[in-house]
């Protein structure tokens, strides 16, 4: 039985490249069809009058709202605020996460003692710490950055600690045999060997930082895209609301894509 599987293999590999490109074409096709079907159903629902027009506005009014949003200076001011929050929280959270991850990964005792806490805390919804952050850092940008940093810290710390333990032991022995200092061991062996898991952690951290920043902005803030969403919501301007959501989706996707390209990790 195993033999027949092996016989089939060569022909399978021969057509692999061609098959892959045609696979990519058909998945793209399916995606486009799905989008068109969704848009069509939405538009049909909107025109059917089954729901309030305001709840399901026409695609065309959403489209017009997107253009209007993109031409208001306020959008860019808020975008800048949110981008800065995400960037700063990722920088702080990932920085601390890498440092703590290294300590936990390098020291078997500390790892055994503290890593369970990191594991248990990692999946808790960080938004529950938001009131505390507001008390500490105020309602402005600082509290969002603090919460974002807290949320991506765990992801980065865990993937760093795991990556550290995965480092090929013989490479460590090579470093020791050449009498590398601790600093040299860290910078020339551990860090390059841990590049992939750490970068992957940073990418995941970007996701959580984005979610947290926007979530916090919708709760309590006076600027940022999340604030803008709530402002539009309070006016019950549904086309603009959907328009802004679509813009945020696209921006988050593009951000993730860029980070993926920069770090060389796949999606």
């Amino acid at each position: 039985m195993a033999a027949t599987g092996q016989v089939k293999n060569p022909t399978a590999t021969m057509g692999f490249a061609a098959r892959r490109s045609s696979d990519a074409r058909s998945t793209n096709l399916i995606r486009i069809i799905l989008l068109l079907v969704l848009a069509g159903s939405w538009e049909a629902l909107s025109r059917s009058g089954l729901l309030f027009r305001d709840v399901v506005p026409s695609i065309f009014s959403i489209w017009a709202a997107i253009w209007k949003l993109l031409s208001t200076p306020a959008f860019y001011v808020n975008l800048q605020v949110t981008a800065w929050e995400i960037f700063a929280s990722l920088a702080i959270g990932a920085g601390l996460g890498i440092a703590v991850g290294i300590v936990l990964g390098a020291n078997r005792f500390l790892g055994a003692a503290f890593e369970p806490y990191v594991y248990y805390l990692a999946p808790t919804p960080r938004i529950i710490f938001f009131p505390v952050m507001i008390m500490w850092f105020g309602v402005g940008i600082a509290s969002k950055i603090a919460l974002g940093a807290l949320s991506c810290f765990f992801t980065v710390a865990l993937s760093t600690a795991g990556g550290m333990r995965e480092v090929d032991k013989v490479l460590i022995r090579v470093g020791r045999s050449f009498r590398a200092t601790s600093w040299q061991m860290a910078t020339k062996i551990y860090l390059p060997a841990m590049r992939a898991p750490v970068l992957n952690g940073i990418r995941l951290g970007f996701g959580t930082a984005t979610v947290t920043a926007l979530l916090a902005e919708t709760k309590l803030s006076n600027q940022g895209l999340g604030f803008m969403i709530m402002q539009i919501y309070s006016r019950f301007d549904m086309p603009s609301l959907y328009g802004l959501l679509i813009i945020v989706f696209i921006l988050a996707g593009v951000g993730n894509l860029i980070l993926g390209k920069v770090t060389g990790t796949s999606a």
Partner: protein
Amino acid sequence: MTLASTAATGATSGQPQLVIDNVFKQFGEGPGAVTAVDHVSFDVKPGEFVSVIGPSGCGKSTLFNIIGGLLDEYSGNVLIERERIAGPHKAVGMVFQEESTFPWRNVIDNVAFPLELQGVNKSERLDRAHHFIDLVGLKGFEKLMPSALSGGMRQRVSIARTLVSGPQILLMDEPFAALDEQTRLLLGDKITQIQQDLNQTTLLITHNLTEAVQLSDRIVVMTYRPGKVKRIVNIDLPRPRTSDVVSSDAFGHYVAEIWADLREEASRGMADTESARRASNRG
């Protein structure tokens, strides 16, 4: 143990560079303890090529780690120029059995690694790395990543990397274990040539008999668990040598002689493994 100089090799008959004196290492405590290295003593003189040969499980790799300074807790002494080593000694350069090139560095940066640690400036670093890449026959491959090389080529990168650090004693643990026989013979040639060119003091840990005879001035034969020195054999084959030596009568004579010793130990090791298997089968 004889300290007779191996005059045929032209090795200097001065002070031994490396002395292994009554080294003993046990893993674990109490009745479950395993003695890996049992009061092993021998020495290596400057320019000499010594092999330690023994069946799997004779504590060869433990000895390698002790001499390399990677394993600190042992009794007895490893002396380099009459001083007991504490941690990896700067005179010793190690080549590991496992794949040990840095996958994120290209060939030349791999080889230049020890110089980078020493803070040698870049142009000198590259010059010296080039020299040793040339020596191991990898000229033209400087910019390739290890993943683009064969196993034999990667092992040569590791050897060049160790040589570039200028070790007085080259310490190798079955560097060719993962390679096929032809590659092994050809790399053996390379090693012989390098060792003769540099007059490099070398200690090779191996389980391969032909490899040991092909390369060595002396062979330390180890017993199966616990690892003791069974015999030390002088190999008086002419130098300079090449792998052609394997077809000579004298070579065959040495192989047969050492095999007679080794066979007993290897079959003891095999019987041990088999009975352990049988026991675990029953359980």
